[in-house]
């Protein structure tokens, strides 16, 4: 089982190289992507018994044949030309530098003209090598719906080979798309968080931009806690009550190293700052040993990155309020949230943070009421159930549940 999984990963890792090679050779992005997708399915069928000597060249050859077949059925009069280009042309002109190709394809798939949902779907297929069915499963939509979303996105990119983009603005879009993939978590057969980490790791091989490494570090440092985040019944376990023995120390180690190499460049950005906060949480042997003053200092940096943090980055200002509560006392934290009520008072997270701070303050009835308000506004079932539990527990005046 594990071997099978590794093989599939290795196979999918070849996708960017092969696809970029085809597109650079002048093939239409849409058609090349379809052809490669068919070649991948063929590879999964054939390789277990007949492993190829050069997997990338094999994929390029089979995808090229598919392209030719497609052209043949399209126009019989092109038959002769098609036969000529059917000669597999593998080698230097098709297969090039790996990192370069990943970047090139990510810029295509995360084209600013596409909607975020399309950017995510196209990235997972064209760069991640996932099948349409796997992507559909992960987002709980019918396969036909996802197929349509992908083909519309590809049509929007049709025309001459996608222009090479390397302005910082476009890299920011790529980073946002990868983070969206990460936060979509995992459902169905595919672990999207793991997939996002794999793609971010490939991206860091292709660019020196410290924010790319910041994003990879942030994902690793959060992913390291995944086993502690739910109990055996699937219930949410908050950070302060997690069994820290379940945290993945290898992943934390890698995350910290990646973060340090990013910070050394001294060009800070939001992913690096968020990763630094995650690293401080990961670094505490127990909740009580959390270095809240340092976390607050990073939150100050984080909210200073945007002109209007309350509207542009509500998660940061609410996280900062919690840190203020720990450093300067619960009342000070509640004071912070009070200033945010007008803009964020309708969000479940604002009420949840108030509940947490009231509890920190020892005011359980107020905590119960705030958690109940948060539960009524929650949009996720597990989170709603968690907040109802928190409310019931606080109202019963009980100790923090060990649940």
């Amino acid at each position: 089982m594990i071997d099978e999984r590794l093989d599939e990963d290795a196979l999918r890792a070849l996708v960017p190289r092969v696809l970029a090679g085809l597109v650079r050779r002048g093939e239409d992005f849409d058609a090349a992507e379809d052809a490669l997708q068919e070649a991948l399915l063929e590879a999964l069928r054939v390789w277990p018994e007949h492993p190829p000597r050069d997997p990338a060249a094999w994929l390029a050859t089979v995808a090229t044949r598919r392209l030719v077949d497609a052209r043949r059925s399209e126009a019989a009069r092109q038959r002769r030309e098609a036969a000529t280009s059917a000669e597999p042309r593998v080698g230097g002109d098709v297969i090039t530098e790996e990192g370069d190709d990943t970047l090139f394809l990510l810029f295509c798939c995360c084209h600013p003209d596409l909607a975020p949902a399309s950017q995510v779907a196209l990235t997972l297929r064209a760069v991640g090598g996932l099948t349409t069915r796997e992507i559909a499963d992960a987002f709980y939509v019918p396969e036909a719906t996802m197929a349509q979303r992908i083909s519309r996105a590809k049509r929007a990119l049709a025309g001459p080979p996608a222009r090479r983009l390397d302005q910082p603005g476009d890299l920011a879009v790529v980073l946002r798309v990868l983070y969206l993939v990460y936060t979509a978590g995992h459902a169905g057969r595919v672990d999207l968080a793991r997939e996002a980490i794999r793609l971010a790791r490939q991206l860091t091989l292709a660019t020196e931009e410290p924010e790319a490494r910041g994003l990879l570090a942030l994902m690793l440092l959060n992913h390291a806690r995944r086993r502690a985040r739910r109990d055996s019944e699937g219930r949410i376990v908050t950070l302060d009550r997690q069994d820290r023995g379940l945290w993945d120390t290898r992943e934390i180690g890698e995350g910290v190293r990646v973060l340090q190499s990013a910070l050394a460049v001294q060009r800070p950005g939001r992913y690096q700052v968020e990763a630094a906060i995650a690293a401080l949480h990961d670094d505490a042997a127990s909740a009580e040993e959390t270095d809240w003053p340092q976390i607050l200092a990073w939150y100050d940096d984080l909210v200073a990155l945007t002109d209007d943090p309350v509207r542009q980055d509500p998660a940061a200002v609410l996280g900062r309020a919690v840190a203020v509560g720990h450093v300067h006392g619960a009342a000070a934290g509640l004071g912070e949230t009070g200033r945010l009520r007008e803009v964020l008072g309708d969000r479940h997270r604002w009420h949840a943070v108030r509940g947490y701070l009231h509890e920190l303050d020892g005011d359980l009835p107020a905590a119960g009421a705030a958690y109940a308000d948060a539960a009524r506004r929650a949009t996720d079932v597990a989170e709603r159930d968690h907040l109802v539990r928190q409310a019931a527990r606080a109202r019963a005046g009980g100790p923090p549940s060990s649940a």
Partner: protein
Amino acid sequence: MPKYLILKHYRGGPEPHHPFPPMDQWPPEDVEAHIAFQRHVIELLEQSGEYVDAQALTPTRTWVRYGGEGAAPVTTDGPLPETSDLIAGWFMIDVESHARALEVAAYVSSEPGPRGEPLYEWLDVREVMSHAPCED
């Protein structure tokens, strides 16, 4: 086999069997038992081969209609009569008969409330129209 939608409501429907407070005011262990029961219902339906779907809805509702040519959609969130139905979620099941659908719904309604007592919640059972293939 016919499909049925078993609808749960935040409000609306017949007079409740007995009044009970919102769940966040129940003793914590009763909250746990209630949530565990919901999960158990889904497992049971999966095992019996009758499960199709289960979803929960947030209580926020927006009524919307066409605003006319070139105009933005017209929305309203009230005022509405206090008694207007507000759906909280559903189970969709694929079962042998209407009687079986009622049996499943009654079981769902036996969900435990405060002190482990059944809630006797009213549920709305609706048959989903089928798309039978044309026959010559």
